[in-house]
Protein backbone atom coordinates (compact mmCIF):
# COMPACT_ATOMS: atom_id res chain seq x y z
CA UNK A 1 0.00 0.00 0.00
CA UNK A 2 1.50 3.31 -0.94
CA UNK A 3 0.88 6.33 1.20
CA UNK A 4 0.12 9.65 -0.44
CA UNK A 5 1.01 12.97 1.11
CA UNK A 6 -1.44 15.85 1.02
CA UNK A 7 0.03 16.99 -2.29
CA UNK A 8 -0.55 13.61 -3.88
CA UNK A 9 3.14 12.74 -4.01
CA UNK A 10 3.87 9.28 -2.65
CA UNK A 11 6.16 9.26 0.36
CA UNK A 12 9.89 8.74 -0.04
CA UNK A 13 12.16 8.51 2.98
CA UNK A 14 15.87 9.22 3.17
CA UNK A 15 18.45 8.03 5.69
CA UNK A 16 21.32 5.54 6.28
CA UNK A 17 24.03 8.16 5.92
CA UNK A 18 27.67 7.28 5.25
CA UNK A 19 30.55 9.66 4.64
CA UNK A 20 34.29 9.85 3.99
CA UNK A 21 35.78 13.32 3.73
CA UNK A 22 38.80 15.31 4.89
CA UNK A 23 37.03 15.99 8.22
CA UNK A 24 36.28 12.40 9.13
CA UNK A 25 34.48 9.17 8.40
CA UNK A 26 31.14 9.38 10.21
CA UNK A 27 28.38 11.99 9.76
CA UNK A 28 28.47 12.92 13.46
CA UNK A 29 32.28 13.32 13.58
CA UNK A 30 32.23 15.47 10.46
CA UNK A 31 29.35 17.60 11.70
CA UNK A 32 30.94 18.07 15.12
CA UNK A 33 34.13 19.27 13.40
CA UNK A 34 32.09 21.72 11.32
CA UNK A 35 30.35 23.04 14.44
CA UNK A 36 33.83 23.59 15.88
CA UNK A 37 34.71 25.68 12.86
CA UNK A 38 37.36 23.23 11.65
CA UNK A 39 38.32 22.97 8.01
CA UNK A 40 39.72 19.94 6.21
CA UNK A 41 41.43 22.18 3.65
CA UNK A 42 45.21 22.41 3.86
CA UNK A 43 47.74 24.50 2.00
CA UNK A 44 49.75 22.37 -0.42
CA UNK A 45 52.64 23.68 -2.47
CA UNK A 46 52.68 22.22 -5.98
CA UNK A 47 49.91 19.66 -5.29
CA UNK A 48 50.32 16.62 -7.58
CA UNK A 49 53.25 18.44 -9.18
CA UNK A 50 51.08 21.22 -10.56
CA UNK A 51 52.65 24.63 -10.77
CA UNK A 52 50.38 26.32 -8.24
CA UNK A 53 49.84 26.75 -4.53
CA UNK A 54 46.38 25.90 -3.34
CA UNK A 55 44.42 24.68 -0.38
CA UNK A 56 43.00 21.24 -1.07
CA UNK A 57 40.85 18.84 0.94
CA UNK A 58 42.50 15.43 0.94
CA UNK A 59 41.18 12.44 2.87
CA UNK A 60 43.88 11.12 5.23
CA UNK A 61 45.01 7.68 3.97
CA UNK A 62 44.25 5.94 7.25
CA UNK A 63 40.55 6.82 6.88
CA UNK A 64 40.22 4.90 3.60
CA UNK A 65 39.67 1.17 4.14
CA UNK A 66 41.96 -0.85 1.88
CA UNK A 67 40.24 -4.23 2.11
CA UNK A 68 38.74 -4.14 -1.40
CA UNK A 69 40.61 -5.82 -4.22
CA UNK A 70 40.53 -2.98 -6.72
CA UNK A 71 43.35 -1.01 -5.07
CA UNK A 72 42.07 2.34 -6.35
CA UNK A 73 41.23 5.14 -3.96
CA UNK A 74 37.79 6.10 -5.27
CA UNK A 75 36.54 2.54 -5.56
CA UNK A 76 37.62 1.88 -1.98
CA UNK A 77 35.90 5.07 -0.83
CA UNK A 78 32.63 4.13 -2.55
CA UNK A 79 32.78 0.53 -1.32
CA UNK A 80 33.32 1.73 2.27
CA UNK A 81 30.30 4.05 2.05
CA UNK A 82 28.17 1.29 0.53
CA UNK A 83 28.97 -1.03 3.43
CA UNK A 84 28.38 1.62 6.08
CA UNK A 85 25.03 2.70 4.65
CA UNK A 86 23.92 -0.93 4.42
CA UNK A 87 24.79 -1.43 8.09
CA UNK A 88 22.23 1.25 8.92
CA UNK A 89 19.46 -0.74 7.22
CA UNK A 90 17.51 -3.70 8.60
CA UNK A 91 18.59 -5.75 5.59
CA UNK A 92 20.80 -5.34 2.51
CA UNK A 93 18.07 -4.33 0.09
CA UNK A 94 20.43 -4.05 -2.87
CA UNK A 95 21.05 -7.73 -3.48
CA UNK A 96 17.44 -7.99 -4.66
CA UNK A 97 15.79 -6.79 -7.84
CA UNK A 98 13.82 -4.08 -6.02
CA UNK A 99 16.99 -2.32 -4.90
CA UNK A 100 19.20 -0.07 -7.04
CA UNK A 101 22.55 1.64 -6.43
CA UNK A 102 23.23 4.95 -8.19
CA UNK A 103 26.85 6.15 -8.40
CA UNK A 104 27.35 9.90 -8.93
CA UNK A 105 30.81 10.94 -10.10
CA UNK A 106 32.31 13.41 -12.54
CA UNK A 107 35.63 11.71 -13.21
CA UNK A 108 35.71 8.31 -11.48
CA UNK A 109 39.19 6.78 -11.36
CA UNK A 110 40.75 9.67 -13.32
CA UNK A 111 44.04 9.18 -11.43
CA UNK A 112 44.61 6.38 -13.99
CA UNK A 113 44.36 8.70 -17.02
CA UNK A 114 48.11 8.35 -17.65
CA UNK A 115 47.56 4.63 -18.25
CA UNK A 116 44.99 4.64 -21.08
CA UNK A 117 44.75 0.85 -21.24
CA UNK A 118 44.03 0.37 -17.53
CA UNK A 119 40.64 -1.37 -17.45
CA UNK A 120 39.81 0.48 -14.23
CA UNK A 121 39.79 3.86 -15.97
CA UNK A 122 36.37 3.87 -17.75
CA UNK A 123 33.50 4.96 -15.50
CA UNK A 124 31.44 1.85 -16.21
CA UNK A 125 34.02 -0.18 -14.32
CA UNK A 126 32.93 1.36 -11.00
CA UNK A 127 29.47 -0.10 -11.43
CA UNK A 128 30.75 -3.54 -12.38
CA UNK A 129 33.14 -3.58 -9.42
CA UNK A 130 30.42 -2.77 -6.89
CA UNK A 131 28.05 -5.26 -8.47
CA UNK A 132 30.58 -8.08 -8.23
CA UNK A 133 31.91 -7.15 -4.79
CA UNK A 134 28.51 -6.87 -3.14
CA UNK A 135 26.48 -9.28 -5.27
CA UNK A 136 24.04 -6.54 -6.27
CA UNK A 137 20.70 -7.49 -7.80
CA UNK A 138 20.90 -4.84 -10.55
CA UNK A 139 23.63 -3.10 -12.52
CA UNK A 140 24.34 0.17 -10.71
CA UNK A 141 23.26 3.31 -12.54
CA UNK A 142 26.09 5.78 -13.12
CA UNK A 143 25.32 9.49 -13.33
CA UNK A 144 28.03 11.81 -14.62
CA UNK A 145 26.44 15.23 -14.92
CA UNK A 146 29.12 17.62 -13.68
CA UNK A 147 28.70 19.20 -10.26
CA UNK A 148 24.98 18.51 -9.99
CA UNK A 149 25.55 14.72 -10.26
CA UNK A 150 24.89 14.17 -6.54
CA UNK A 151 21.65 16.17 -6.28
CA UNK A 152 20.54 14.69 -9.61
CA UNK A 153 21.21 11.21 -8.22
CA UNK A 154 18.91 11.88 -5.26
CA UNK A 155 16.15 13.29 -7.51
CA UNK A 156 16.51 10.38 -9.94
CA UNK A 157 16.35 7.87 -7.06
CA UNK A 158 13.13 9.39 -5.72
CA UNK A 159 11.53 9.46 -9.18
CA UNK A 160 12.35 5.81 -9.81
CA UNK A 161 10.79 4.91 -6.45
CA UNK A 162 7.68 6.99 -7.15
CA UNK A 163 7.34 5.43 -10.60
CA UNK A 164 7.32 2.04 -8.86
CA UNK A 165 10.56 0.86 -10.49
CA UNK A 166 12.44 0.18 -7.25
CA UNK A 167 11.60 0.13 -3.57
CA UNK A 168 15.01 1.19 -2.26
CA UNK A 169 17.75 3.21 -3.98
CA UNK A 170 21.18 3.97 -2.56
CA UNK A 171 22.82 7.12 -3.90
CA UNK A 172 26.62 7.07 -3.67
CA UNK A 173 28.59 10.18 -4.60
CA UNK A 174 32.34 10.21 -5.00
CA UNK A 175 35.21 12.11 -6.58
CA UNK A 176 38.92 12.40 -5.79
CA UNK A 177 41.37 15.28 -6.05
CA UNK A 178 43.79 14.48 -8.87
CA UNK A 179 46.41 16.06 -11.08
CA UNK A 180 43.78 16.04 -13.83
CA UNK A 181 41.09 18.08 -12.10
CA UNK A 182 43.46 20.37 -10.20
CA UNK A 183 45.38 21.32 -13.35
CA UNK A 184 42.12 21.88 -15.22
CA UNK A 185 40.65 24.27 -12.67
CA UNK A 186 44.07 25.97 -12.45
CA UNK A 187 44.04 26.43 -16.25
CA UNK A 188 40.64 28.11 -15.94
CA UNK A 189 42.09 30.38 -13.20
CA UNK A 190 39.31 29.12 -10.92
CA UNK A 191 41.48 28.02 -7.97
CA UNK A 192 42.14 30.31 -5.04
CA UNK A 193 45.50 30.17 -3.29
CA UNK A 194 44.01 30.61 0.17
CA UNK A 195 40.78 29.31 1.62
CA UNK A 196 37.63 29.75 -0.45
CA UNK A 197 35.25 32.49 0.68
CA UNK A 198 31.80 31.79 -0.76
CA UNK A 199 29.67 34.96 -1.22
CA UNK A 200 32.40 37.12 0.33
CA UNK A 201 33.56 40.37 -1.21
CA UNK A 202 37.13 39.08 -1.37
CA UNK A 203 36.41 35.65 -2.84
CA UNK A 204 38.86 34.59 -5.55
CA UNK A 205 37.98 31.01 -6.42
CA UNK A 206 37.49 27.44 -5.34
CA UNK A 207 39.33 24.81 -3.31
CA UNK A 208 39.00 21.25 -4.55
CA UNK A 209 38.22 18.52 -2.07
CA UNK A 210 37.62 14.78 -2.23
CA UNK A 211 34.79 12.86 -0.66
CA UNK A 212 32.46 9.94 -0.89
CA UNK A 213 29.05 9.78 0.72
CA UNK A 214 25.98 7.58 0.69
CA UNK A 215 22.26 8.01 1.34
CA UNK A 216 19.41 5.55 0.98
CA UNK A 217 15.99 6.55 -0.35
CA UNK A 218 13.10 4.18 0.20
CA UNK A 219 9.33 3.97 0.04
CA UNK A 220 9.47 1.90 3.25
CA UNK A 221 10.62 3.78 6.35
CA UNK A 222 10.86 0.59 8.40
CA UNK A 223 14.04 -0.34 6.51
CA UNK A 224 16.01 2.27 8.47
CA UNK A 225 17.48 1.21 11.81
CA UNK A 226 18.05 4.81 12.86
CA UNK A 227 16.62 8.20 12.03
CA UNK A 228 15.34 9.20 8.61
CA UNK A 229 13.85 12.24 6.92
CA UNK A 230 11.46 12.80 4.07
CA UNK A 231 12.26 13.61 0.45
CA UNK A 232 9.55 15.90 -0.93
CA UNK A 233 10.43 16.93 -4.51
CA UNK A 234 13.21 17.98 -6.84
CA UNK A 235 13.97 19.16 -10.36
CA UNK A 236 16.84 19.99 -12.69
CA UNK A 237 16.96 22.74 -15.30
CA UNK A 238 19.46 23.89 -17.89
CA UNK A 239 20.41 27.57 -18.31
CA UNK A 240 20.49 27.12 -22.11
CA UNK A 241 23.08 29.87 -22.05
CA UNK A 242 26.75 28.87 -21.79
CA UNK A 243 28.69 25.62 -21.28
CA UNK A 244 31.13 26.91 -18.65
CA UNK A 245 29.85 30.31 -17.51
CA UNK A 246 26.94 30.60 -15.08
CA UNK A 247 23.85 32.39 -16.42
CA UNK A 248 23.82 36.09 -15.57
CA UNK A 249 20.10 35.86 -14.75
CA UNK A 250 20.26 32.62 -12.73
CA UNK A 251 17.60 31.27 -15.09
CA UNK A 252 18.19 27.53 -14.75
CA UNK A 253 18.68 27.56 -10.98
CA UNK A 254 15.58 29.74 -10.54
CA UNK A 255 13.53 27.42 -12.71
CA UNK A 256 14.77 24.29 -10.93
CA UNK A 257 13.73 25.81 -7.58
CA UNK A 258 10.30 26.81 -8.94
CA UNK A 259 9.76 23.35 -10.36
CA UNK A 260 10.76 21.84 -7.01
CA UNK A 261 8.48 23.95 -4.82
CA UNK A 262 5.38 24.06 -7.03
CA UNK A 263 4.47 20.34 -7.12
CA UNK A 264 4.99 20.24 -3.32
CA UNK A 265 2.71 23.28 -2.81
CA UNK A 266 5.44 24.85 -0.71
CA UNK A 267 6.13 28.60 -0.78
CA UNK A 268 9.67 29.93 -0.63
CA UNK A 269 9.05 31.58 2.75
CA UNK A 270 8.25 28.17 4.29
CA UNK A 271 11.83 26.98 3.76
CA UNK A 272 13.86 26.95 6.96
CA UNK A 273 17.29 26.29 5.52
CA UNK A 274 19.00 26.52 2.14
CA UNK A 275 22.24 24.63 1.49
CA UNK A 276 23.59 26.38 -1.59
CA UNK A 277 26.35 25.45 -4.03
CA UNK A 278 28.58 28.44 -3.11
CA UNK A 279 31.86 27.54 -4.81
CA UNK A 280 33.57 30.84 -4.06
CA UNK A 281 34.05 31.89 -7.68
CA UNK A 282 32.94 35.36 -8.59
CA UNK A 283 30.40 34.34 -11.23
CA UNK A 284 28.85 31.29 -9.56
CA UNK A 285 28.09 33.01 -6.26
CA UNK A 286 26.69 36.08 -7.99
CA UNK A 287 24.47 33.93 -10.20
CA UNK A 288 23.12 32.12 -7.14
CA UNK A 289 22.28 35.37 -5.35
CA UNK A 290 20.24 36.47 -8.38
CA UNK A 291 18.46 33.11 -8.70
CA UNK A 292 17.65 33.01 -4.97
CA UNK A 293 16.32 36.57 -5.06
CA UNK A 294 14.12 35.71 -8.05
CA UNK A 295 12.89 32.64 -6.16
CA UNK A 296 11.95 34.55 -3.00
CA UNK A 297 14.77 33.03 -0.93
CA UNK A 298 16.73 36.18 -0.02
CA UNK A 299 15.76 35.91 3.64
CA UNK A 300 16.19 32.15 4.00
CA UNK A 301 19.13 31.13 6.23
CA UNK A 302 21.75 29.89 3.76
CA UNK A 303 25.27 28.49 3.83
CA UNK A 304 27.86 26.95 1.56
CA UNK A 305 29.86 24.04 2.98
CA UNK A 306 32.76 24.39 0.54
CA UNK A 307 34.91 26.13 3.18
CA UNK A 308 34.86 22.96 5.33
CA UNK A 309 36.05 20.38 2.78
CA UNK A 310 36.21 22.10 -0.60
CA UNK A 311 34.31 21.50 -3.80
CA UNK A 312 33.87 17.75 -4.03
CA UNK A 313 32.40 17.82 -7.58
CA UNK A 314 30.17 14.79 -8.20
CA UNK A 315 30.04 13.99 -4.49
CA UNK A 316 29.05 17.54 -3.49
CA UNK A 317 25.30 17.07 -3.79
CA UNK A 318 25.31 13.88 -1.73
CA UNK A 319 27.69 14.98 1.04
CA UNK A 320 26.09 18.42 1.38
CA UNK A 321 22.55 17.03 1.41
CA UNK A 322 23.62 14.51 4.04
CA UNK A 323 25.22 17.14 6.27
CA UNK A 324 22.30 19.50 5.70
CA UNK A 325 19.94 16.77 6.92
CA UNK A 326 22.24 16.23 9.92
CA UNK A 327 22.13 19.95 10.76
CA UNK A 328 18.34 20.01 10.46
CA UNK A 329 18.05 16.98 12.73
CA UNK A 330 20.32 18.58 15.34
CA UNK A 331 18.66 21.97 14.84
CA UNK A 332 22.13 23.45 14.49
CA UNK A 333 22.96 24.97 11.11
CA UNK A 334 26.66 25.69 10.64
CA UNK A 335 28.05 29.08 9.60
CA UNK A 336 29.09 29.58 5.97
CA UNK A 337 32.84 29.21 6.60
CA UNK A 338 34.99 31.89 4.94
CA UNK A 339 32.23 34.49 4.69
CA UNK A 340 32.94 37.89 6.22
CA UNK A 341 31.64 40.69 4.06
CA UNK A 342 28.73 40.62 1.60
CA UNK A 343 30.09 40.26 -1.91
CA UNK A 344 27.10 39.48 -4.13
CA UNK A 345 24.63 41.94 -5.63
CA UNK A 346 21.42 40.49 -4.18
CA UNK A 347 20.61 40.15 -0.48
CA UNK A 348 21.24 36.77 1.15
CA UNK A 349 20.73 35.69 4.75
CA UNK A 350 24.11 34.01 5.15
CA UNK A 351 24.53 32.00 8.35
CA UNK A 352 27.38 33.47 10.41
CA UNK A 353 26.77 31.83 13.76
CA UNK A 354 25.37 28.39 14.53
CA UNK A 355 21.64 28.81 14.29
CA UNK A 356 18.43 26.78 14.51
CA UNK A 357 16.26 26.36 11.40
CA UNK A 358 12.90 28.08 11.63
CA UNK A 359 10.96 25.38 9.80
CA UNK A 360 11.22 21.70 8.92
CA UNK A 361 11.81 22.32 5.20
CA UNK A 362 15.34 22.09 3.83
CA UNK A 363 16.29 22.97 0.24
CA UNK A 364 19.52 21.81 -1.40
CA UNK A 365 20.74 23.33 -4.68
CA UNK A 366 23.65 22.74 -7.05
CA UNK A 367 24.89 24.17 -10.33
CA UNK A 368 27.51 22.95 -12.76
CA UNK A 369 29.30 23.13 -16.09
CA UNK A 370 27.10 22.43 -19.06
CA UNK A 371 24.65 25.01 -17.67
CA UNK A 372 23.02 22.45 -15.40
CA UNK A 373 21.22 23.23 -12.12
CA UNK A 374 19.29 21.09 -9.66
CA UNK A 375 17.42 21.47 -6.41
CA UNK A 376 15.79 19.09 -3.97
CA UNK A 377 13.44 19.65 -1.05
CA UNK A 378 13.36 17.66 2.19
CA UNK A 379 11.32 17.67 5.39
CA UNK A 380 13.13 16.90 8.61
CA UNK A 381 11.29 16.12 11.86
Amino acid at each position, binding site marked *: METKTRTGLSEVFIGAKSILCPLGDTPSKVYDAMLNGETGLKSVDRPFGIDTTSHVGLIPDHLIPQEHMDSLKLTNMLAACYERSVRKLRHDAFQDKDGLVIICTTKGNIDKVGEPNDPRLPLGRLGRFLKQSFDLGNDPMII*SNACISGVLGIITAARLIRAGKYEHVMVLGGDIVSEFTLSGFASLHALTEGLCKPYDKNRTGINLGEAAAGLVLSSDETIFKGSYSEYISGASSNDANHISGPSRTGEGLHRSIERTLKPASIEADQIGYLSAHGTGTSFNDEMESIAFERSGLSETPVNSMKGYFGHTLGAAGVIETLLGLEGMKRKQLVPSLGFEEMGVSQPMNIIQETTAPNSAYFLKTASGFGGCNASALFKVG
Partner: protein
Amino acid sequence: MSLFLKTYCRIKGGEVHINGELFCQHMDEDPFLRSLYKHIGLSYPKFFKMDELSRLGFIGAEMTLMRSELENYADDEVAVIFSNRSSSLQTDFQYYETLKGGIASPALFVYTLPNIEVGEICIRHKLYGENNFLITERFDAAQLLEQCEALFEDNAAKAVLIGWTEVESDNHDGFFAFITASGMNEVTAESLTDLYLNR
Protein backbone atom coordinates in the same frame (compact mmCIF):
# COMPACT_ATOMS: atom_id res chain seq x y z
CA MET B 1 2.82 3.32 -18.77
CA SER B 2 3.12 3.35 -22.56
CA LEU B 3 5.85 5.33 -24.28
CA PHE B 4 5.85 6.55 -27.86
CA LEU B 5 8.52 7.19 -30.47
CA LYS B 6 8.22 10.33 -32.56
CA THR B 7 11.51 10.38 -34.48
CA TYR B 8 14.81 8.57 -34.36
CA CYS B 9 18.18 8.99 -35.95
CA ARG B 10 21.07 6.57 -36.30
CA ILE B 11 24.61 7.67 -37.08
CA LYS B 12 27.04 4.82 -37.67
CA GLY B 13 29.71 3.72 -40.15
CA GLY B 14 29.65 6.96 -42.11
CA GLU B 15 25.91 6.74 -42.69
CA VAL B 16 22.93 8.60 -41.30
CA HIS B 17 19.51 6.98 -41.12
CA ILE B 18 16.46 8.96 -40.03
CA ASN B 19 13.35 7.00 -39.07
CA GLY B 20 14.90 3.95 -40.66
CA GLU B 21 15.64 5.52 -44.04
CA LEU B 22 19.05 6.38 -45.40
CA PHE B 23 19.45 10.15 -45.14
CA CYS B 24 23.04 10.54 -46.33
CA GLN B 25 26.41 8.87 -46.58
CA HIS B 26 29.89 10.20 -45.98
CA MET B 27 31.12 10.99 -49.49
CA ASP B 28 33.52 13.95 -49.50
CA GLU B 29 37.02 14.65 -48.21
CA ASP B 30 35.95 16.43 -45.04
CA PRO B 31 35.87 14.65 -41.69
CA PHE B 32 32.51 12.93 -41.23
CA LEU B 33 30.77 15.31 -38.80
CA ARG B 34 32.05 18.42 -40.56
CA SER B 35 30.72 17.02 -43.81
CA LEU B 36 27.34 16.36 -42.15
CA TYR B 37 27.30 19.92 -40.81
CA LYS B 38 27.63 21.22 -44.38
CA HIS B 39 25.17 18.69 -45.76
CA ILE B 40 22.34 19.85 -43.51
CA GLY B 41 23.17 23.50 -44.15
CA LEU B 42 23.99 24.44 -40.58
CA SER B 43 25.40 27.81 -39.70
CA TYR B 44 26.55 27.63 -36.10
CA PRO B 45 30.21 28.63 -35.73
CA LYS B 46 30.36 27.31 -32.13
CA PHE B 47 30.16 23.83 -33.66
CA PHE B 48 33.83 24.09 -34.60
CA LYS B 49 34.88 24.78 -31.01
CA MET B 50 33.20 21.61 -29.74
CA ASP B 51 34.92 18.32 -29.07
CA GLU B 52 34.01 15.32 -31.20
CA LEU B 53 31.53 13.93 -28.64
CA SER B 54 29.60 17.20 -28.48
CA ARG B 55 29.64 17.50 -32.29
CA LEU B 56 28.13 14.04 -32.63
CA GLY B 57 25.43 14.83 -30.05
CA PHE B 58 24.78 18.23 -31.55
CA ILE B 59 24.31 16.92 -35.13
CA GLY B 60 22.18 13.99 -33.97
CA ALA B 61 19.97 16.26 -31.85
CA GLU B 62 19.63 18.68 -34.76
CA MET B 63 18.38 16.02 -37.14
CA THR B 64 16.05 14.47 -34.57
CA LEU B 65 14.55 17.63 -33.09
CA MET B 66 13.84 19.27 -36.46
CA ARG B 67 11.46 16.37 -37.12
CA SER B 68 9.88 16.29 -33.66
CA GLU B 69 7.49 19.27 -33.71
CA LEU B 70 9.35 20.92 -30.88
CA GLU B 71 7.02 23.94 -31.15
CA ASN B 72 4.29 21.87 -29.47
CA TYR B 73 6.17 21.99 -26.18
CA ALA B 74 6.97 24.71 -23.68
CA ASP B 75 10.69 25.44 -23.33
CA ASP B 76 10.99 23.40 -20.12
CA GLU B 77 8.84 20.42 -21.15
CA VAL B 78 11.52 18.62 -23.14
CA ALA B 79 14.17 16.73 -21.18
CA VAL B 80 17.54 15.69 -22.59
CA ILE B 81 18.92 12.38 -21.27
CA PHE B 82 22.11 11.14 -22.87
CA SER B 83 24.33 8.15 -22.26
CA ASN B 84 27.49 6.46 -23.44
CA ARG B 85 30.20 4.00 -22.44
CA SER B 86 33.34 6.11 -22.34
CA SER B 87 32.15 9.38 -20.82
CA SER B 88 34.49 12.08 -22.22
CA LEU B 89 37.55 9.81 -22.17
CA GLN B 90 38.81 10.69 -25.70
CA THR B 91 38.88 14.38 -24.76
CA ASP B 92 40.31 13.50 -21.33
CA PHE B 93 43.31 11.95 -23.11
CA GLN B 94 43.70 14.99 -25.38
CA TYR B 95 43.54 17.35 -22.42
CA TYR B 96 46.03 15.22 -20.48
CA GLU B 97 48.44 15.40 -23.44
CA THR B 98 48.38 19.21 -23.33
CA LEU B 99 49.04 19.05 -19.58
CA LYS B 100 52.02 16.73 -20.07
CA GLY B 101 53.18 18.96 -22.92
CA GLY B 102 53.54 21.82 -20.44
CA ILE B 103 50.46 23.98 -21.08
CA ALA B 104 47.14 22.57 -19.92
CA SER B 105 44.38 23.65 -22.32
CA PRO B 106 41.38 25.22 -20.57
CA ALA B 107 39.40 24.98 -23.83
CA LEU B 108 39.84 21.19 -23.80
CA PHE B 109 39.33 20.85 -20.03
CA VAL B 110 35.81 22.29 -20.30
CA TYR B 111 34.91 19.36 -22.57
CA THR B 112 36.15 16.73 -20.11
CA LEU B 113 32.61 16.30 -18.77
CA PRO B 114 30.20 14.24 -20.87
CA ASN B 115 27.16 16.39 -20.07
CA ILE B 116 28.71 19.35 -21.88
CA GLU B 117 27.19 17.93 -25.08
CA VAL B 118 23.76 18.06 -23.41
CA GLY B 119 24.50 21.71 -22.53
CA GLU B 120 25.40 22.44 -26.17
CA ILE B 121 22.08 20.95 -27.32
CA CYS B 122 20.12 22.92 -24.70
CA ILE B 123 21.79 26.17 -25.76
CA ARG B 124 21.11 25.53 -29.45
CA HIS B 125 17.42 24.65 -29.00
CA LYS B 126 16.72 26.82 -25.91
CA LEU B 127 15.72 23.85 -23.78
CA TYR B 128 15.39 24.67 -20.06
CA GLY B 129 14.12 21.23 -19.04
CA GLU B 130 15.56 18.28 -17.16
CA ASN B 131 19.03 16.91 -17.97
CA ASN B 132 20.88 13.74 -17.12
CA PHE B 133 23.93 11.88 -18.39
CA LEU B 134 24.23 8.17 -17.70
CA ILE B 135 27.18 5.84 -18.23
CA THR B 136 26.37 2.30 -19.34
CA GLU B 137 28.70 -0.32 -20.76
CA ARG B 138 26.48 -0.71 -23.84
CA PHE B 139 23.41 1.01 -25.28
CA ASP B 140 20.77 0.38 -22.63
CA ALA B 141 17.30 1.09 -24.01
CA ALA B 142 15.62 -0.21 -20.86
CA GLN B 143 17.46 2.24 -18.60
CA LEU B 144 16.80 5.21 -20.89
CA LEU B 145 13.09 4.41 -21.23
CA GLU B 146 12.86 3.88 -17.47
CA GLN B 147 14.18 7.43 -17.11
CA CYS B 148 11.53 8.72 -19.54
CA GLU B 149 8.81 6.96 -17.59
CA ALA B 150 10.07 8.32 -14.26
CA LEU B 151 10.11 11.87 -15.69
CA PHE B 152 6.62 11.56 -17.19
CA GLU B 153 5.19 10.07 -13.99
CA ASP B 154 6.67 12.98 -12.01
CA ASN B 155 5.23 15.51 -14.51
CA ALA B 156 8.80 16.71 -14.99
CA ALA B 157 8.69 16.47 -18.80
CA LYS B 158 6.29 15.82 -21.67
CA ALA B 159 8.93 14.58 -24.08
CA VAL B 160 12.52 13.37 -23.81
CA LEU B 161 15.34 13.50 -26.33
CA ILE B 162 17.35 10.40 -25.48
CA GLY B 163 20.77 9.83 -26.94
CA TRP B 164 23.68 7.43 -27.10
CA THR B 165 26.95 8.95 -28.33
CA GLU B 166 30.20 7.06 -28.43
CA VAL B 167 33.29 8.30 -30.25
CA GLU B 168 36.46 6.30 -30.71
CA SER B 169 38.96 8.01 -33.03
CA ASP B 170 37.06 8.15 -36.36
CA ASN B 171 34.40 5.72 -35.35
CA HIS B 172 31.08 7.38 -34.50
CA ASP B 173 28.22 5.50 -32.89
CA GLY B 174 25.19 7.71 -32.35
CA PHE B 175 21.53 6.96 -31.68
CA PHE B 176 18.91 9.60 -30.93
CA ALA B 177 15.19 9.27 -30.26
CA PHE B 178 12.39 11.65 -29.33
CA ILE B 179 10.19 9.87 -26.80
CA THR B 180 6.76 11.18 -25.83
CA ALA B 181 4.09 10.30 -23.28
CA SER B 182 1.38 10.15 -25.93
CA GLY B 183 1.45 9.42 -29.65
CA MET B 184 0.97 6.77 -32.29
CA ASN B 185 4.09 4.67 -32.40
CA GLU B 186 4.46 2.76 -29.14
CA VAL B 187 8.00 1.87 -28.20
CA THR B 188 9.50 -0.71 -25.85
CA ALA B 189 13.06 -1.45 -24.74
CA GLU B 190 13.11 -4.39 -27.18
CA SER B 191 11.86 -2.40 -30.17
CA LEU B 192 14.21 0.49 -29.43
CA THR B 193 17.17 -1.90 -29.13
CA ASP B 194 16.22 -3.36 -32.53
CA LEU B 195 16.27 0.10 -34.06
CA TYR B 196 19.69 0.75 -32.56
CA LEU B 197 21.07 -2.56 -33.82
CA ASN B 198 19.43 -2.52 -37.26
CA ARG B 199 19.28 1.17 -38.06
